């Protein structure tokens, strides 16, 4: 098992945001975490990464990681792409990608040149400041930067938010490609389109807890769940 989350609680001040989340992700699996805004999806990944103090058990490849500092969690092989597309605006695209490498002496399976070859628009702008990229390009860059660290599981938070449909398609293709190369994925999404297309399993969250677990087709058939927890 790649990631096992058991009875995870998290708080913002006095607000009890996560109220006992249970979740599992297997090796090579693509799992989506769905739900409306404010139900605790982003908080779940933040708690896993140690950005929000977690209470409960989080095991990554069998190692308990709850309470570890973020950089140690990253070194164990857990990658995180936050929803706000935190590129380093003053650095070039190439420098951004280089900072994704954790240990320059042991580069992973994703090479800088491969990455630039995969995305012609990033290649054309390799030496320009990342701050001037479009929203879609920034999203591609943050995902690629995390991949440079050779993670075994990547958690991607809302990658398609605010992007044009054609770019959403490209981001979806990239995530599918990551999965094809054997990396496990936890995709946090509000929209169903990409999640239903590429996921092996989906979780639906409501009020800080998991309210549904199943395959995309099971979710498609479960109108009650969709109505109560997903549709706006």
């Amino acid at each position: 098992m790649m990631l096992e989350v058991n009875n995870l609680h998290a708080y913002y001040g006095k607000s009890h945001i996560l109220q006992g989340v249970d979740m599992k992700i297997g090796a090579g699996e693509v799992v989506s975490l769905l739900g409306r805004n404010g139900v605790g999806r982003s908080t779940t990944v933040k708690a896993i990464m140690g950005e929000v103090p977690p209470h409960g058990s989080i095991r990554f490849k069998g190692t308990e990681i709850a309470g570890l500092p973020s950089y140690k969690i990253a070194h164990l092989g857990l990658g995180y792409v936050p929803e706000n597309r935190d590129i380093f605006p003053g650095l070039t695209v190439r420098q951004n990608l280089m900072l994704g490498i954790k240990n320059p002496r042991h580069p992973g399976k994703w090479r800088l040149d491969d990455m630039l070859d995969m995305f012609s628009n990033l290649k054309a702008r390799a030496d320009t400041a990342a701050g001037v990229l479009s929203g879609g390009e920034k999203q591609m860059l943050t995902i690629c930067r995390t991949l440079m660290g050779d993670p075994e599981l990547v958690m991607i938070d809302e990658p398609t938010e605010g992007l044009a449909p054609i770019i959403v398609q490209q981001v979806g293709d990239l995530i599918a490609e990551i999965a094809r190369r054997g990396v496990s994925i936890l995709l946090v999404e509000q929209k169903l389109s990409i999640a239903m297309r590429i996921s092996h399993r989906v979780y639906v969250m409501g009020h800080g807890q998991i309210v549904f677990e199943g395959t995309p087709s099971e979710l498609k058939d479960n109108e009650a769940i969709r109505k109560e927890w997903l549709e706006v």
Partner: protein
Amino acid sequence: MLELIVISSLNGILFGMLLFLMASGLTVIFSMLGVLNFAHASFYMLGAFFGFQISRWVGFWPALVLAPLLAGLIGIAVERYGLRHVHKNGHVAELLFTFGLAFAIEEVVQIIWGKSPVDFRVPAVLDFPAFTIFSTNYPAFKMFMLLVSVVIFLSLLLVLKKTRVGLIVQAALTHPHMVAHLGHNVGRIFMLVFGVGTALAAVAGVIAGPALVTQSNMAALLGPILFVVVVVGGLGSLPGAFIASLMIGLLQTFAVSINTSPASLFGPLDPAWATTWLSDIWNVTVAQVAPVLPYLLLVLVLIFRPMGLLGTRET
């Protein structure tokens, strides 16, 4: 007149570069920790006193290396065992911590070296005039100070722009969480930056000590000017700190050498006014108000451009 301009420019640039050695560390530490380190000038003072003491034992040249190293190690310890713990309690606690630290360092320096100036002399090898212009002998030690500051400035730039550590520091200035998520130990980077920043201030202390006065009030004398530099340049902006350092260095050295007063420009006051308080103002020279000028600049910048020359923050 030309003599005045050349000598004042040289002195101004020199003072400016010294300020930058200190301001660079202060502004980078501010960017990372989000708090002004009130004790920064104290590390400049520590540098001067360590430099003085080590010079007595093993000579000036080892002191130039050892004193900043020692001050940097103390800086690292302050961050690791002090600031990092205080950080959890918010910025006010951090501010008070550095404020208290400044007093503590001053007291310790006074206990060890006393209140009067110590005899920190220019090393004999550099105790000669470098060149003579317009009948003024320009001391070689001042040229040496300029050289050290320029070399450090260029190395700092090179490290920040060209090395991996420099890139990580740049990224961590604005996005510390993201840098940690990519697997970099941000705590260690902060500690390193604090150590390098305080060591740079100490370098300024070692080279300024023999040229200026090495005394336990030197931190208190220089600290306020340092804040002016950092605020005028824009909190957190390294290029801003560089420009502001040179600006204030030049402003102060030029101001102290100008003996012009309204009286000398427009002639003496009417005898009817000459006995009133107005005559005091009329006869004040630019040199006399020179110490106030940086603070005047600070006030003007805060009114008209609160984020500083090159800063991006509003506060």
